[in-house]
Structure formats: C-alpha cells, structure tokens
C-alpha cells in the first residue's frame, strides 16, 4: 500500500481512464514486444490503429468499476465525538478504512473485512477540533473564559466532566452562538491538520481521501445537516475555512458560500444532505427556510447544482420510503426512525411526506411541471455517520454510533437514547438498538481518484447500500431487448444505447415505452439476492403523484400470487447462533423490464431496489457474542438492500 501511495502520487491523474491505461500500456508494449510473446493478431490490430491501443480495454472510457466508500465519518476532531469518548483522529480513521487493524477508543481491536475504496472525513465545522484543543491545552482555547472552563470539565477524567463539557458545547450549537468566534485561527489549524491527513493518505488509483466537513444546522433540533465534499486537494481546500451553522443558518447561504469557494479557487464542491427522517418535515419542505417563501425555479436549480446527491440510509435510520406513505410496499418499513428529532418538537404524520426520499422524488416531478425545474432530482447514496473514527457498516462488525456504544455487553449499547432526549413524551425516544448498521456509498467510475469519484457523484451515477457490497447496474433506453442481458459487453451496450442510473431519458420516440436493463450481483463474501425491484413514481395529467413497486427478477421458481405479490424468499437465519446460509436466493439476477403502464405524456422516474435474503441483524450477533438478551422491539433478521439513483423521464426531455 505504501509504495502505491507514492507511485500514484507521482502519476499524472486523469478522470479519463483510457488515457491512463493507454500510457501505462504504451510503456509495457516495448517490453512485451521485445520478449516476442505477444499474440500476433492483437498486436497487428493495435498497430494498425495506434500503438497506444494495444489493450482493447484501454478504449473503455466509460465507468466500468464500482467503488465502495463512506462519505460521512467523524473523528475525535468532531466536538460531539471527541467529547463523547472518541480518541482516534484522522490518521487512525484512514488506516482503518484502508484495512489496517486499529484499536478503538474503548480498547476493542477493530478491522474491516474488506477495505473501503474511499473515505470522506466529515467532521463537524462547529468548533472543529475542539476536543483536540482541550486535549492539548491549546493556549488559544485557554485564552477565553469559556475555553478554560470547557477544558477544565473535559480534562476532569470523569463521566460528569465529560458530560458537562459536551453539554457546554451542545448548548452553544443549539443556540447558534459560537463560543470561540474570535478564535478562527485555531479552527484554521485544525482544518489544515485534517487536510494534511487527507493528503497523506490519498493514493490515486488505490485509495481516495476526499476532503470534506459537515455543516451542522438543526433549527430547533430538526436535522438539516449537510456534508460538504471537495473535488480538490489541500491547495484549494486550505484557501477557505469550513463554514459552520454559526456562520449561516440557511442552506441557501451555504450554497452562496460554496459558489464563493468555486469562484475563489476554481475548484468544485458539493453538499450531501442527510437524515430527512429527523428533520420534522424541513428536509424537503415546500417553502424556503428563512423566507418561508414557496420554492421557485432559481431555488430548484441552485439546490440541484450544489446538492445532486442525498444520503438516504445511515446509522440513524433508513429514509428511502415510509410504510404510511407507501402502504402497498411490503418492504418500505426498513430500519425506520420516525419518532422525534434532536429537539423538543414532537413528530406528527403530516411531516413524513417532506422527510422521505421516494415521496420527495415524486413531489419533485410536480415541481418540475410547475416551475420548469425540479428541486428534488437527487441521486442516492448511503454512509455511516459513525462518530467512532471507524467506518463500520456490517452487521457482524458494527462499532456503533459513538465511542461509548462500541461493542460490549454493557446495556448502554442497546439502551442509550439517540433522539427524543428533549421531548416530553418518552415514546418519542429512539435508542441505539434501533441503529442501522450501515450504510455505504457505491460509485460507478473510471478510476479510484478524487476527480473520478466526485464526478460520478455529480452525475449521480451512484447508489446506496445498507452496508452490503452488492453490485447493481441499470440502463434505460427505448431499443433494449431481453437478449441484451446476455451480452458480455452489457455496460458498453448500455451506455451506447441508453442512460445509466442518475441519467435522463430523452423524449420517447413515437410514444414507445422505455426498457430497463438491470443486473445485480451479490457481495463476494455476502448473502445471496432475493429479488430486483423497480420503483416507479409518476405525475398524472391532474397533477397527482403515484408510485408502484414492480418485482422484476427473483431467485428460484417462485410465482407471483393472485394479488401480484411475490412469495417471500424464505429465511435461513438461526437466531441463536446468528448464522445464515446461501441455500436460498441467487448470486446473480438480471432483468429486462419494459414499463407496462408507460404514458409518454407523464413525467416519471425509475429506480432499482435490490433485496438480499434475510441475514442476522447486528443486535442478533451482539446477543450471541456477548450472551445478552435479544431486544424484542427490533427484528432478529433483516434484508439488506441497495437503492440506485433514479433515471428520470420527461415528455420534453428536461
């Protein structure tokens, strides 16, 4: 790994893989020819066209690799992580993501089954690095009365001291009063340490460390957080200091800041919102936050310019669909967190349509028709939001939301409240046993580099998983047929004759219905697949939105029942032993699906959901390993899944 760091740092980076491959192959060609072992026809063919095209794959400029990563990891530089027991900084976080063994903050040795391909450390901008300043007795911190006090509390070495320090900081964030407003130089130091660490660990082609931070705005405790992710390296990122909720309280102002960054540095930056499920209806609201004005075209265009992707699944619940919004979808209730937020306001059912991704995508179609621009035309990814510096997304290797909740038999791991601490009604509390051990972001890209991955996010050629590394590809076009599924040049054919996930279908020739080509393959070390589904949302002539979930490919010989529902795949999970077997399901599923209810005049989107067979939930592994009682209010087994970014259809091609 280490030599690669250097070799690849020296290699010129391009997001056109073709160029990289061609230059590499060119050098090799001389050697290979000298040894005279090359198969003649290939060489002749290559020389006839261009020497640099020795390898036929060199011409594959389309994305043919999928990379898995986490865009949302906190280290001890985040105040709410470091003041809650996380002692691991960015170096340990990168090492862990790259597959090294790391000892967790609570002393538990940890390692990933498979390393990640990329990582974004997204520490909270609000008093960035405060725990490090406390730990180091930073004189700039101690120069302020508040700083001295939080240092004293933070360094007491007692749970009380830690809690007091945490509360001191949290109350400032909730009140949006920066206690260290005159200590910007300290924040700059911390930011530069983080960008330093990213540069040290970024190894183009092998492991990508994208630079980022989290803007943590939560009016009244309602979650509007965004992770800000740079396409650029330290040279550009260091020209700014991360913008915090102290600086701007409105996402629109965050976009102003992002535009100013791009203007100043010539770089690129995007923001990824998350946890609409804890926003109490604010994430996909019909009005602007500050002005309370109805959304307009300029808002919609700016939002999608700066926020092309939404983090749909993470530790604090899955936000794809809600059972009350999608009552006929039997899989909609997955790791649902629909009770309360971080603030005192109770959750009410009218908030839900403005919190869940599927509903937002549907409402976006109506906005597109009304405004000529869609404010909710986002792609989808998952990530962890771990505050442990350990990007763990697997059920049998889950280090929890914060360091105090790392693996142990201690009841705190199941019982600690995460939301609803401030609501009067205790039923609005959601505890850590509800935590979802996930998720991951998957990107189809040409190469594992900052620019190639960032560009994949920008064009929404990404998908979310709840922690599994299953692969899924989808192309939509008007000329595809079932025979195309057998093509071994599936991807090239898909790009040449259709659009990939995240794309826009051009208007339909002669009202022809589009066909989706879909292929899904299980995680090499994971569970088999149950089924592939297409989720369609559309807008009718009367302006009403609709949705339908279609089963399009499934394992075994199952036949849909009279009501159209496919029988369940079965369940091999042994709860006592926390095991499952791949005796059911399929390692590979593919489908060619033509929309049976296509209406060329109706706006629509299609996204793919892939379900695995049931596997033990992390709480079930915990019960086995630590010999603790299995909690009764969470399922013993779950069906891990992937959600692709949608493909949109519009009659006028917009």
């Amino acid at each position: 790994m280490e030599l690669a760091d250097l070799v690849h740092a020296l290699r010129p980076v391009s997001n056109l893989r073709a160029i990289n491959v061609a230059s590499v192959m060119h050098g090799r060609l001389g050697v290979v020819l000298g040894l005279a072992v090359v198969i003649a026809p290939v060489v002749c063919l290559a020389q006839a066209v261009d020497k640099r095209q020795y390898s036929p794959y060199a011409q594959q400029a389309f994305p043919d690799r999928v990379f898995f990563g986490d865009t949302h990891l906190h280290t001890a530089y985040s105040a709410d992580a470091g003041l809650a027991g996380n002692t691991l900084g960015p170096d340990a976080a990168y090492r862990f993501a790259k597959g090294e063994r790391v000892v967790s903050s609570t002393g538990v040795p940890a390692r990933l089954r498979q390393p990640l391909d990329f990582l974004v450390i997204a520490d909270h901008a609000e008093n960035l690095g405060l725990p490090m300043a406390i730990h180091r007795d930073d004189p700039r911190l101690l120069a302020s009365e508040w700083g001295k006090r939080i240092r004293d509390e933070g360094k007491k070495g007692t749970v009380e001291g830690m809690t007091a320090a945490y509360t001191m900081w949290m109350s400032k964030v909730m009140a949006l009063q920066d206690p260290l407003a005159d200590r910007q130089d300290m924040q700059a130091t911390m930011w530069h340490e983080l960008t330093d660490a990213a540069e040290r660990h970024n190894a183009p082609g092998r492991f990508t460390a994208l630079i980022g931070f989290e803007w943590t705005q939560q009016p009244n405790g309602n979650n509007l957080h965004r992770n800000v992710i740079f396409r650029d390296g330290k040279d550009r990122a260091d020209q700014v200091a991360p913008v915090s909720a102290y600086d701007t309280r409105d996402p629109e102002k965050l976009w102003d800041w992002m535009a100013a960054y791009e203007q100043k540095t010539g770089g690129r930056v995007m923001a990824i919102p998350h946890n609409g499920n804890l926003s109490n209806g604010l994430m996909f609201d019909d009005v602007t936050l500050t002005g309370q004005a109805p959304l307009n075209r300029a808002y919609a265009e700016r939002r999608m310019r700066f926020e092309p992707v939404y983090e749909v699944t993470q530790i604090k619940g899955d936000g794809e669909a809600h059972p009350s919004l999608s009552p006929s979808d039997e899989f909609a209730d997955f790791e649902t967190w629909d009770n309360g937020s971080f603030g005192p306001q109770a959750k009410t059912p009218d908030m839900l349509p403005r919190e869940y991704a599927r509903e937002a995508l549907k409402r976006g179609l109506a906005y597109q028709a009304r405004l000529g621009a869609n404010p909710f035309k986002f792609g989808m990814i998952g990530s962890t939001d771990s505050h442990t510096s350990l990007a763990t997304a697997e059920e049998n290797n889950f280090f929890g939301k914060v360091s105090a909740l790392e693996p142990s038999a201690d009841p705190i791991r199941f019982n600690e409240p995460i939301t609803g601490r401030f609501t009067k009604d205790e039923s609005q509390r959601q505890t850590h046993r509800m935590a979802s051990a996930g998720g991951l972001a998957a990107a189809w890209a040409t190469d594992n580099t900052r620019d190639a991955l960032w560009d994949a996010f920008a064009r929404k050629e990404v998908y979310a998983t709840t922690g599994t590394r299953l692969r899924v590809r989808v192309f939509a076009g008007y000329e595809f047929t079932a025979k195309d599924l057998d093509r071994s040049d599936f991807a090239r054919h898909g790009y040449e004759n259709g659009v990939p996930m995240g794309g826009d279908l051009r208007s339909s020739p002669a009202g022809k219905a589009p066909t989706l080509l879909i292929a899904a393959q299980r995680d090499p070390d994971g569970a088999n697949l149950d089924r592939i589904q297409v989720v369609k949302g559309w807008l009718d002539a009367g302006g009403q939105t609709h949705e339908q979930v279609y089963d399009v490919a499934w394992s075994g010989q199952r036949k849909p029942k009279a009501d159209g529902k496919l029988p369940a795949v079965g369940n091999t999970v042994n709860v006592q032993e926390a095991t499952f077997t791949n005796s059911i399901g399929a390692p590979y599923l593919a489908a060619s699906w033509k929309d049976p209810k296509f209406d060329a005049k109706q706006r629509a989107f299609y996204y793919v959901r892939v379900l695995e067979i049931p596997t033990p939930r992390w709480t079930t592994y915990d019960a086995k390993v630590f010999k603790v009682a299995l909690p009764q209010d969470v399922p013993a087994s779950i069906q891990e899944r992937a959600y692709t970014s949608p493909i949109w259809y519009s009659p006028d091609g917009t």
Partner: protein
Amino acid sequence: MTNSPERSRWLREPMLHFLIIGTGLFLLYQFVRGGNETAPREIVISEPRIEALAENFGRTWMRPPTPQEMRGLVDDYVKEEVFYREAIAMGLDRDDTVIRRRLRQKMEFVSEDTAATAEPTDAQLQQFLAQHPEKFVEPARVTFEQVFVNAGQRGDAARRDAEQILASLQAGRGSALPAEAGDATLLPAALENASPQEISGSFGDEFSKQLEAAPMGQWSGPIASTFGLHLVRVTARSAGALPALAEIRPIVVREWQAQQRAQAGDSFYSSLRSKYEIRYEGEIGQLLQQAQPAASAASTQR
C-alpha cells in the same frame, strides 16, 4: 539547543515525565486530602462553584435562578458529590464498564502526551525501514483480463463450454474484446496492477489465490470464483519489493511517528504494570499462568 545529546535524551525520556506527573499528582492529592486520611468529610461550596451552577441553570432557562432555585441547585450538587464520593468508596466505579473505559482512556492520553514528536533522522528511518519491511513492502501486483462463464445459468455444461471458449481464445478467434466471448457479469473485464486484496474485493479469495498460479501471456483456466468460472490471461506481474527510503520517506516518517506513540504508550503501561503482581486462581487460572502472557495491548492512535 546547547544541551549535550545525553542530556536532551534524558529530558525526553518518557519515564521521567511519568515520574514528574506522578509525583505532582501525589502531592496534589495529599494537599487536597490535607495529608490526613481521617480528615473530616468536607464538601466545599466555593464561589466559582456557585457561579458555575447558576450559569449552567441560566443556559437552559435563559434567566438566573431564583434564591430558592439556587438552594435546590446547591443541594443537588451536594447530593451528587456525596453519592460520588460514597460510590467511589464503595468501589462502584470498578464494575462500571463506561467509567473504567473512560479512566483507561484518560491514562492513555497522559501517556500519549509524552510521546516524542521529534523529526527522525535518515539513519533512524533507514533502520526502521529495514526492521519493518512488512509495513512498506509493495504487494505483488497482477494485470489480467478475464472471461466469465456463468455456471449458474449454464449448469452442467458450464465447464465444457468454458473449455471451448478457452480453445477459441487461445486460437485468437472471435471478438477483439475477449470478454465478449463469455457471459454477462458486473465484474470488471480487466484489472491493472491489482494487489491480491483488490482482486479479492471484486472476485473473492478463492479466485485471487488461483490467479497466482495462472501462466503469463496466454489464456488459461477455467478457475472458479463464488460467481462461476473464469478464463484468465495474465499480461503483467510484479513481485513484491521493498522500496528505497528516498522513494517513500514521508510514509516511513508517518509510520515511525505512529510507532513512537505506540511505544510510549506501551512503556507507560509496562512501568505501571510492573507495580502489580497478578495472581491466578482456579484450574483455568493455572493454565493461563502457564501460557505466555499476551503482548502488551497496542495503545490508541491519533
């Protein structure tokens, strides 16, 4: 620096730091306790304490506490302090995982603070590189193409089909893109300079191991993965090698510093550990005692 090397090394010695910190803590403890184990149990409500309680109240309620509320806050503080002291005296902290872990963490902080962050010399780095080749060795890398044969779809015919495709590939027949001779898959048709770990990430361990034995420059196989059968052609291999220091200096520095921190933590722990005798009880205890003690736990990293 005008210090002699011996003197500055002595000043950097972690043990010295621990001794100074330890003595300081002991003196402080004696001072606070009045140096007398039987001193009256006293809880001091100092002015700064009262101010802190009032301010904490004000943060939540946006106004100062009334005298009655202030009385309540102080009473609550006294209650907390009494319970805290009694709980410590009763040893309740010892059974509490959260408290124990937090205290352990604080100790690790103390040790880490003393770790030298000095810039290493080239000689030190060279030695470190030689002593820890496993940290820096470049893994063996393989460039290969693969043609996938879907055993799930083709069933019993899969192996025979694979051999036919292999013969055709070896004869140079068919498409310019070899992968087109096989079945549809989401696996990459080729990987360049891939390490065994990267290959396992896409194809699984079984495939990665078998690929090591595949001949260079010609189509061979089929080899099996968790997905089916694969025909492979390896076009380049590089053996693992240890790079020179000049090529990877920043990485060696990173690792050297990480090790310095870990060592400081370990020696801190050993110095404390040496003050304790471990007594094993029972039959299993005897067995454990006979076994070699485990290497000291690695310290936390930053």
